[in-house]
């Protein structure tokens, strides 16, 4: 039974998504508020940031029939999150390989006319692209290692629904 593409895995314990717990999920991905913007004496805007601080925040929420397996889950624990929010990057015409920013799954390469092209995964997050690709986009769902910042569970007893929200930050 395939409820969702979402994966919430506690390392060594397994996936937290139980049946009837994660249908019609919503996920947001946003960047951590780490970058500092400053203007030079000439008025040009500069971003003071380092590559190592390019991380994601995410909130996942859902309203379904059962809670996910959050018992024993606490702030600070690390989850391997298979996101349902895809990310996409442009791919130039004639490009033979592109590197994804993160590990991921469900990769799809498509041209400007939305025609789908084959792409083969290779090492270090690179994807090989068939010669003759006319330019377009590569999309995939990232796999992120994230720390639990908080979560909430909510039951509507007579409505037979369980809602949950999970706040995460990439480690």
């Amino acid at each position, binding site marked *: 039974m*395939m409820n969702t593409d979402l994966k919430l895995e506690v390392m060594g314990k397994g996936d937290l998504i139980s049946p009837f717990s994660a*249908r019609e999920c919503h996920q947001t991905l946003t960047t951590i508020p780490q970058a500092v913007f400053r203007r030079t004496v000439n008025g040009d805007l500069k971003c003071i940031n380092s590559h190592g601080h390019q991380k994601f925040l995410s909130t996942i929420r859902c309203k379904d029939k059962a809670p996910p397996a959050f018992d024993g889950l606490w702030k600070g624990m690390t989850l391997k999150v298979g996101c349902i929010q895809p990310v996409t990057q442009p791919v130039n015409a004639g490009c033979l390989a592109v590197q994804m920013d993160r590990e991921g799954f469900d990769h799809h390469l498509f041209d400007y006319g939305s025609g789908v092209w084959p792409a083969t995964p290779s090492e270090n997050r690179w994807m090989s692209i068939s010669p003759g690709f006319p330019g377009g986009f590569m999309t995939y769902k990232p796999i992120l290692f994230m720390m639990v910042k908080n979560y909430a569970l909510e039951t509507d007893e007579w409505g037979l629904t369980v809602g949950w929200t999970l706040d995460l930050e990439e480690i």
Partner: protein
Amino acid sequence: MRELLINLSSLLSAVIPTYVHVPLKTPYPYITLEPDLVLLGLPWGPRVATFSIKIWSRYAGTIEILKLAKEVETVIQNYRNNSLKIRESSLELLKDGQTRLHTFKLKTRLLGRPE
């Protein structure tokens, strides 16, 4: 969607006869499967489908249709190929005063390419 309807039809036929198109003079009770909407997000992506399972009964009273509804609900919950989310469940007596209709409105996410 067609595969889903065929599979469900096969499983529900173990409860009572199930049809997408009801033959003339079909005796009651029976089940109909009624596709509603298929949303295709992306060429490669999953589709979201809504459809109804309707139980039709002319038994004098509600015992038959409630018993059948329970059996159908079990089939829905145990269906392994896709997760079937029950959005709404209703029971009504039609205007003829003899026919009872139990409707399950369902939503599911279909993987793979469109048929």
